[in-house]
């Protein structure tokens, strides 16, 4: 027995078994971003800066077709996400459709808005798992970060409904300088809420998190402390709570294999139907993305220029090309190379072998030491005009 997939959407520090694969294998997971609408306004939201409006979203029939095609392609897990996926009234119908196709369904939710009213029907429809975000351990922190008063209390209420239904619950906490001091309490909260799993996800700087980087970047000693706390809790809570951790990569030695390797395991479908190798891929200019409105999912997976652009290792340059780790991390994240170095085919500067790594670490250290600026809260139509500094500038 071996573990073939662990947190396919964002690679974690434990239990991943990257394996050499043929250039186009079968995908294992799909992130269905059903909508960008969300009652919360998290300043680290991974959605793009240009958020899609309701009128542009795919209809129910198209999503059903895409989900059936996903099952036929060998996809095992479907992550019903957004935005807030319960903003779509057809979510129950889509969940039932996935269940009928034999797909494992994971609801990724803020627990706010329609979530509470819908959870019974979702459970009935065959939902397999709920992943609930929390923005902090306390209402004060959580409501400030999510930009929604009363949000934290509503989340706790929702969590109880989920576990009362017997559904497995994961808590997901994105960690940054505004809540890194609550990591210990977040672990305790997960246990108190009877979660089976906790994701301690240090912020990854894409989308809204990238523009808010100076407000989010934690200091190195705080990062080290939180990592040690998680490691201690993992031992203490074995058999009670599984804790997966996403490492903060500006301070890392080696990058994460983003999405388990480009075009290798997972795909993302945006609210309007564009299919991406990862949720931030649209930040890379000149990539040609295909849409499920025009083509079948299998055709897109096999032949879309965006998927083939960085598949495998042939596209690599030095130092990745001759590196022993090239089939482990696949050169890291293309979007991060683009954002920080201005070149999507460069080595991810999170890697200590990148010539830009020292600059990235210095950037993080400088930002963490400065007074935190105010959050730029996520809003539809609220994209900022200017991006923060990269490593090559």
């Amino acid at each position, binding site marked *: *027995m*071996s*573990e*073939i*997939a*662990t*947190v*396919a959407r964002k690679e974690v520090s434990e*239990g991943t078994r990257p394996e050499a694969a043929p250039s186009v294998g*079968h995908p*294992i997971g799909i992130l269905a971003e059903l909508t960008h609408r969300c009652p919360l306004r998290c300043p680290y939201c991974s959605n793009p800066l240009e958020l899609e409006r309701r009128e542009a979203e795919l209809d129910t029939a198209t999503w059903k077709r895409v989900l059936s095609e996903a099952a*036929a*392609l*060998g996809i*095992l*897990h479907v992550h019903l996400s957004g935005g807030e996926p319960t903003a779509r009234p057809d979510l129950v119908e889509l969940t039932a459709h996935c269940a009928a196709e*034999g797909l*494992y369904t*994971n609801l990724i939710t803020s627990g706010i808005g329609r979530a509470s009213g819908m959870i019974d029907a979702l459970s009935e429809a065959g939902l*397999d*798992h709920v*992943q609930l975000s929390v923005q902090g351990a306390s209402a004060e922190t959580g409501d400030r970060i999510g930009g929604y008063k009363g949000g934290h209390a509503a989340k706790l209420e929702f969590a109880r409904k989920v576990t009362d239904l*017997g*559904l*497995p619950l*994961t808590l997901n906490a994105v960690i940054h300088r505004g809540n890194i001091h609550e990591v210990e309490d977040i672990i305790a909260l997960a246990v108190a809420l009877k979660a*089976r*799993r906790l994701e301690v996800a240090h912020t990854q700087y894409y989308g809204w998190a990238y523009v808010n980087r100076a407000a989010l970047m934690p200091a190195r000693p705080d990062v080290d402390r939180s990592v040690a706390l998680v490691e201690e809790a993992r031992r203490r809570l*074995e*058999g*009670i*709570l*599984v804790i*997966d951790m996403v490492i903060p990569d500006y301070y890392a030695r080696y990058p994460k294999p983003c999405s388990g390797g480009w075009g290798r395991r997972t795909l993302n479908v945006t609210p309007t139907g564009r299919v991406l190798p990862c949720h931030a891929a649209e930040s890379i200019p000149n990539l040609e993305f295909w849409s499920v409105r025009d083509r079948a999912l299998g055709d897109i997976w096999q032949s879309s220029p965006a998927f083939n652009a960085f598949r495998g290792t042939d596209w690599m340059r030095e130092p990745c090309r001759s590196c022993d780790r090239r089939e482990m991390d696949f050169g890291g994240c293309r979007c991060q190379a683009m954002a920080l170095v201005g070149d999507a085919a460069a080595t991810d500067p999170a890697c200590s072998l990148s010539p830009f790594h020292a600059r990235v670490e210095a950037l993080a250290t400088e930002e963490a030491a400065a007074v935190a600026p105010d959050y730029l809260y996520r809003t539809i139509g609220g994209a900022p005009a200017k991006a923060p500094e990269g490593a090559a500038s």
Partner: protein
Amino acid sequence: MRAEETDVPRLPRGVKLKFDQVRSRHVLLAPERAFNIDETAAAVLELVDGQRTCGQIVDALAARYDEKREVIADDVRDMIGSLIARRVIET
């Protein structure tokens, strides 16, 4: 972690054994995890029903396979124990 012979393991809601038609093998699906299940592991998991004890699962396998009971018991208790540690099996 190692399961006891008296433990009664079960797959909780959100954990499913499935035959994957595309890859022609069994997979165990759990929250954010998929485990590749070989024939032996599938034989064990098919007996995990919330009724049988680990000891009874071992007995059933010992009757079926040409292997010493204690060898099977070690494997079964380790495998079930590792899945308990990962919150994939409950007792």
